[in-house]
């Protein structure tokens, strides 16, 4: 304890009397190291988190109701919907019918019957336009034309990836229709049944489920695909209070809806690959960040080593007058701790006080997501603990190696 107290005195006074610019520079390096550790993996994870956030906002909502394992669709959909309407915790929901079809364009202008038809295999989703828009904000993804009007029939929204003009970046991965635009007539075929639709709007989003989709009113969907039982494929729900989806899910199950549908929160129902990619990016970020830690630890090692080396004689004299080695080591460890704590604190302040909010307001525009900065506090604490520990070791080692030198040799400056 005595040694610790003396070490604190020696270390703190060294920090106090050190050159302010040198101290600032070291702290700046530590802050950058901390940011490198937090921000690199945070942005990599945020890239996926941004995509995940968009999928939640524009496609899957907070709670997903899907068919039971031994069913093809949501049985008793109308009963489920009536029940959902009675839950005050639910902000909005959308009932979705989904099937595959083919969409054909430019067939009226086709003169040569031997020529290839302008056709695309598409996913068709039947929705109540008002409910869907309330749940997923689908209308905000219109990039040409207009959103569906619930009072009209014979109109379709076409995902941008099915339109050649917007899908060129994907080459031949998807079928796309050439030259179509809002107002054009297309033919939607489901099995043996075909119906003409006028393209009301083109929708585009960074969520593939939206851009690779076509939307028609649910009434027309049921007629076209013969869904006379009115059983839907999916119901997605937005809860009023973000973060309460687990509680709302339990309430839905308690009310007996679990007998008709598989009920999952977004986290449970989201595609597994999102979690896998997130974990992969997190590991990648940690790896890149660890290079920063190595650089920082070498920096601290050199700083403490030079500091201790330049005070070698003073260290010898301190030992000579009876100051324990441990006290002198504590003095240098304290300095390393000071640099690590202040640097990390500034880095944390910058991260939580500015960067996270900034990237939330100004996401990084990636082709498939709006990247944000993700820095969970628990992970940040772990990374700080790693940085702190390594910095301590980097501070201790040079001090230890110099303090253990022969006292008289240190006093006389002998090697």
């Amino acid at each position, binding site marked *: 304890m*005595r*040694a610790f*107290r*003396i070490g604190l*005195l*020696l270390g703190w*006074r*060294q920090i*106090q*009397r050190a050159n302010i610019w040198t101290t600032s520079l070291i702290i700046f390096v530590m802050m950058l190291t901390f940011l490198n550790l937090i921000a690199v993996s945070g942005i990599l994870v945020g890239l996926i988190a941004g995509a995940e956030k968009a999928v939640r906002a524009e496609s899957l909502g907070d709670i997903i109701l899907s068919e039971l394992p031994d069913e093809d669709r949501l049985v008793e959909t109308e009963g489920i919907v009536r029940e959902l309407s009675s839950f005050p915790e639910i902000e909005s929901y959308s009932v979705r019918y989904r099937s595959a079809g083919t969409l054909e364009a430019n067939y009226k202008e086709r003169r040569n019957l031997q020529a290839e038809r302008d056709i695309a295999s598409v996913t068709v989703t039947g929705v109540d336009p008002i409910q869907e828009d309330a749940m997923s904000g689908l209308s905000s993804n219109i990039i040409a034309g207009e959103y569906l009007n619930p009072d009209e029939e014979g109109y379709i929204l076409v995902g941008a990836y099915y339109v050649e003009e917007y899908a060129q970046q994907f080459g031949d991965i998807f079928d796309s229709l050439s030259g179509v635009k809002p107002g054009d007539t297309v033919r939607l075929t489901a099995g043996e049944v075909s119906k003409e639709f006028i393209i009301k709007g083109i929708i585009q989003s960074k969520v593939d489920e939206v851009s690779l989709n076509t939307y028609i009113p649910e009434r027309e969907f049921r007629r076209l695909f013969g869904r006379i039982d009115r059983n839907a494929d999916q119901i997605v729900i937005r809860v009023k209070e973000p973060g309460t989806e687990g509680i709302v899910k339990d309430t839905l199950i308690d009310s007996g809806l679990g007998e008709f549908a598989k009920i999952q929160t977004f986290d449970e129902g989201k595609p597994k690959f999102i979690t896998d990619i997130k974990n992969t990016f997190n590991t990648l970020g940690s790896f890149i960040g660890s290079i920063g830690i190595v650089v920082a630890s070498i920096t601290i090692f050199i700083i403490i080593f030079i500091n201790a080396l330049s005070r070698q*004689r*003073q260290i010898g*004299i*301190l*030992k*000579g*007058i*009876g*100051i*324990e*080695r441990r*006290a002198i080591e504590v003095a240098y460890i304290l300095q390393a701790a000071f640099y690590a704590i202040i640097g990390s604190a500034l880095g944390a302040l910058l991260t939580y006080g500015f960067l996270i909010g900034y990237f939330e307001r100004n996401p990084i525009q990636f082709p498939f997501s709006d990247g944000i900065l993700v820095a969970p506090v628990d992970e940040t604490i772990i990374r700080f603990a790693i940085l702190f520990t390594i910095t301590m070791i980097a501070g201790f080692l040079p001090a230890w190696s110099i303090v253990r030198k022969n*006292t*008289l040799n240190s*006093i006389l400056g002998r090697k």
Partner: protein
Amino acid sequence: MKKKSTTAPNIITATGITRTFTTGKVITEVLKGIDVSIQTGEFVAIMGKSGAGKSTLMYQLSLLDEPSGGTLMVDNTNVLILNEVERTKFRLNTLGYVFQDYALVPDLTAEENVMLPLLMRGLEWNTARTTARGAIDGVGLIGKYLNLPSELSGGEQQRVSIARAIAGKPKILFADEPTANLDSVSGTQVIQLITDLNRIDGQTVVMVTHEREYALGADRIIHMEDGIVVNVEQLKK
């Protein structure tokens, strides 16, 4: 003023002290079997030319170095069997040091420099500060408690160094050429201070110096040459 007894017990008894240094295949014998006894309350000066071995002898007697051979009893303790930690503790509790270039910690104030060994001994902060200020007052630097070493003259720094050495009331004060870096006025003041510590407080002092005028305040002068004691001069008081 304490009266010296001619039959005071020996506080240092060194017998056959040798010290050799090996550099590659070259072995240099710096001390060649020194026998020295110093009584409690005695002021002994060690003199000699450069390379005579006077500082090396003081390092052995003050436990800053370990002899290659011989026996050494300090304050009734066979110090040669102590390990590094025990030696450090022994130096802290029993010995005081004044180095030729003051050797103060530049980041600490005068009082903090003096407090350092006191805190290491386990004194509470306030007690250590009061004791340190008393010691600083005692060396004539009243009010300069909060000055950094860089704000003090060489003579003042050496006084702080003496205050640090004596604040814990060590049994033996070792001074290694304490006037080497001082002008003659400051040097004389420092020697007077050390002499007074011996004369008034009965402090045992072992001092290395190469200037005879500074050694004249001692009880005895040990003259060294080429690693051996060539003469012990008893000074009449």
